[in-house]
């Protein structure tokens, strides 16, 4: 974590996002997709958000980016409450938070070159220069030869690097990382994880890191929030959540992760169990 503990870059307070659906007999039902979620993300910190599909993680992310309208509660970016801003001001503030998508295969426009993909947000913001694009790509470990290539010419790991470069284009304070490595090959995941660590340090970025792979969450996060049925059932330092989980759901999640160590198996040869 950073030396100055104080500054909160993203604060979500008692957020409620509801959807109404019609049940099989035509009765209206309200689904509380996000049900009273509060957390604060500090500068330079990584908050891991874990939970299973349908728990409301994605709705929470969409709401942070203004794609869903909350019923109540607030989202503050760098101390500005998003709901109270004019749309122009809101766009400027919203740019401080950027998203890295899960699937680098579908999240990049296949007809654009790497240069154009990274240049797009810069052009919209009126800050484009070829040098900026090249240095952003350099930042994520892609050389000048990448500029003219299209997504299909890159591997999954390289595509995810392009997605990260694009997210960094407007110098955000916060990156929301939605399962950033789960679509990648195992041997490439570690490369992207190391890159994320380096970039965080270099740019004092804060990460809201969403993943179902708890070992990656543990490795990258300072604090961890566990979400179930729209609520954060447990929030704490990663050591507290992983070593002394309080909520039964957290415990069942942790108990479900396969441990990549055969010595922990009941049928392990005794001399291995001891070592």
């Amino acid at each position, binding site marked *: 974590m950073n030396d100055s503990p104080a500054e909160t870059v993203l604060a979500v307070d008692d957020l409620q996002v509801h959807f109404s659906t019609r049940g099989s007999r035509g009765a209206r039902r309200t689904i509380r997709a996000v049900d009273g979620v509060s957390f604060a993300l500090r500068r330079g910190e990584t908050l891991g958000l874990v939970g*299973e599909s349908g728990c409301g993680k994605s709705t929470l992310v969409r709401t942070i980016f203004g794609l869903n309208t909350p019923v109540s509660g607030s989202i503050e970016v760098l101390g500005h409450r998003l709901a109270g801003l004019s749309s122009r001001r809101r766009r400027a503030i919203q740019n401080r938070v950027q998203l890295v998508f899960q699937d680098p295969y579908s999240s990049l426009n296949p007809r654009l070159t790497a240069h154009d993909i990274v240049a797009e947000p810069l052009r919209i913001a009126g800050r484009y220069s070829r040098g900026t694009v090249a240095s952003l790509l350099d930042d994520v470990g892609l050389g000048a030869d990448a500029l003219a290539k299209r997504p299909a010419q890159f591997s999954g790991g390289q595509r995810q690097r392009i997605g990260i470069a694009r997210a960094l284009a407007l110098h955000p304070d916060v990156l929301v990382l939605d399962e950033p490595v789960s679509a990648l090959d195992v041997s490439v995941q570690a490369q992207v994880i190391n890159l994320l660590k380096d970039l965080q340090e270099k740019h004092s970025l804060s990460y809201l890191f969403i993943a179902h792979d708890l070992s990656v969450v543990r490795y990258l996060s300072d604090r961890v929030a566990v979400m179930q049925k729209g609520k954060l059932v447990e929030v704490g330092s990663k050591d507290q959540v992983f070593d002394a989980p309080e909520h039964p759901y957290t415990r069942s999640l942790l108990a479900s992760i*396969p441990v*990549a160590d055969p010595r922990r198996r009941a049928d392990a040869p005794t001399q291995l169990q001891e070592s």
Partner: protein
Amino acid sequence: MSDRPVLLEVTDLSVGYRTEDGAVVTLVDRVGFTLHEREVLCLVGESGSGKSVTMLAVLGLLPDGLEILGGSVVYRGRDLLDLTPREWSALRGAELAMVFQDPMTALNPVKRVGSQIARAVTAHTPGLGRRAVASRVETLLADVGVPEPAERARSYPHEWSGGMRQRAVIAMAMANGPSVLVADEPTTALDVTIQAQIMRVLADARERTEAAMILITHDLGLVAETADRICIMYAGRVVETGSVWDIFEHPTHPYTAGLLASLLSSEHTGDRVYAIPGQPPSPASRGTGCPFASRCELPAKSELCLTTRPALAPSGSSQSSACHFADATADFAAEVTA
């Protein structure tokens, strides 16, 4: 494990396709492994490593365009590569059964779950009465932990959750008490708590029927928890094989060592985790030497790695490694894991 009788023996199996100008691209390159009775063998590899194509070839399910270029697949003394389609349909689903990754595509969306399982039963036991079939379906569903099986059998796949659907697929695979169960990433599409339940269901099913299992996965956690023996595949080849204990304890191939070192565990407190550099080669650019050479960081590596393909050779009590410098891997493994 290896003192048990051999069920399935795959030797030098190669699979590939022909490009328009007649060149052959090899996807699976002289792969071999042995499955013993009641054993769990894990085929481990990343996407494109050839693990799924290998199993499709073994099961006679290669899609159009892919062809077997050589080798043999012997199941209980019969070479499966010589079977006629008719012989295949008698064997597949009865003695060799499959569970695929996505239960939604494995089930027919417009047929009731029960009648799909019933079809699997009657396909290999014709002449069974309606009542007997229905009660068999009920037992199969109950065995995989589906509550109220008689009632649930009448519903359609979309009415079931992902985990329940995968249970139905497992019930179907176990319908005829197979000797070999092939499970291709059976839990990848599921949430982690459901994943654990499904692995439990598979373990119970194997216990009841004494089936051996080939588990295809990229998840080393699952491998560590379920495998007896492991085959690590890379770029269409088996690069290391051995018992789960030996491979996790002392890998003898630099790819295995790198994979294990890049695993994030609670013991990782350092700032960086070891990452294998580069990307896996594409099938067309695998070259003549070791396919891992361009990413290998073994200090001992030499010119030999670029020119000569290393053969799989014994490298430990239970292990074989396809590396010219398997002996030097221990020091490398210790260094990258530190």
